[in-house]
């Protein structure tokens, strides 16, 4: 049993190594791009549409609705980022049913990269919406005394985002491996099914938290759409 899937090396040429994390990340990326390209090649605007187009439309509108609910803003500009995060994490967790596949999200490198993207996206969206001064000013709220705590919170929530996804996915693999040694017949499958559920929930939570962090940096001075709720 290898806990760290970074150490599974398929191919090596000098300093360049191709480990399981990179390979399966590329696989997931290629799958996403290929399916999207293949489905959107011939879109129909009529009532009759292919079932794949229907699937993608359901996915996109569901993500849009969730973003609108959480951020109380128009989802347009957040949809590419949040949607990509969700689809990538969800697909890499779901593919765990394929034998021989190791989810790249069970490696700290992948989740750290995703979390760093969220870390970068928060100021990008924040400055884009509020301007540099207003964005920097919110670090000194409610008083200037809170400045170091706000910065610390920014860093620690990024680490928490990475370790949460990594820990959940890695624990699924480890538990199945341990159960294979103790009760190899029935229970590993049950735990693997449970792992699929956890994987989907974690993908959802990763996207929701990214959206919440971005919304907290952008929403402050905007008029809320529905203040009563």
């Amino acid at each position, binding site marked *: 049993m290898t*806990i760290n899937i970074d150490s599974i090396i398929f191919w090596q040429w000098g300093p360049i190594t191709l480990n399981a994390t990179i390979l399966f990340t590329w696989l997931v990326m290629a799958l996403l791009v290929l399916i999207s390209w293949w489905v959107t090649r011939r879109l129909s605007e009529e009532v009759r549409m292919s079932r794949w187009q229907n699937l993608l439309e359901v996915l996109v509108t569901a993500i849009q609705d969730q973003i609108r609910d959480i951020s109380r803003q128009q989802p347009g500009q957040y949809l590419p980022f949040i949607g990509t995060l969700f689809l990538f994490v969800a697909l890499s967790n779901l593919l765990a049913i394929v034998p021989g596949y190791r989810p790249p999200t069970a490696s700290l490198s992948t989740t750290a990269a995703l979390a760093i993207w969220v870390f970068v996206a928060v100021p990008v969206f924040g400055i884009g919406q509020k301007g540099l001064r207003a964005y920097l000013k919110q670090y000194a709220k409610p008083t200037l005394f809170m400045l170091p705590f706000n910065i610390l919170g920014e860093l620690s929530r990024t680490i928490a985002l990475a370790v*949460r996804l990594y*820990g*959940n996915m*890695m*624990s699924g693999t*480890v538990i199945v491996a341990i159960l294979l040694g103790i009760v190899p017949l029935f229970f590993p499958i049950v735990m693997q099914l449970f792992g699929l559920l956890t994987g989907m929930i974690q993908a959802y*939570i990763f996207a929701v938290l990214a959206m919440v962090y971005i919304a907290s940096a952008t929403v402050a001075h905007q008029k809320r759409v529905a203040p009563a709720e």
Partner: protein
Amino acid sequence: MGDMALIGMVSIITAGLTMAIGSIGPAFGEARAVAQALSAIAQQPDEAGTITRTLFVGLAMIESTAIYCFVVTMILIFANPFWDHVVTAAAG
């Protein structure tokens, strides 16, 4: 008792303690969160969607404390740097 036995023993005991103590807090927290959410849904079934979404996000945040403990335990058992150091020192 040599260094190796000592480090192995302390690692295993600490791993067990980490898991035991580290799962009590999140267990209580999650139980409380779920109980509150259930009574909230019972009072306002119309808001079930919002409550459930917030509940899931909150559960994940609570559970991450237990997950941190689990990660530390896994490091202690499978990727212990002190153990590796002693093993390489004994081998070389």
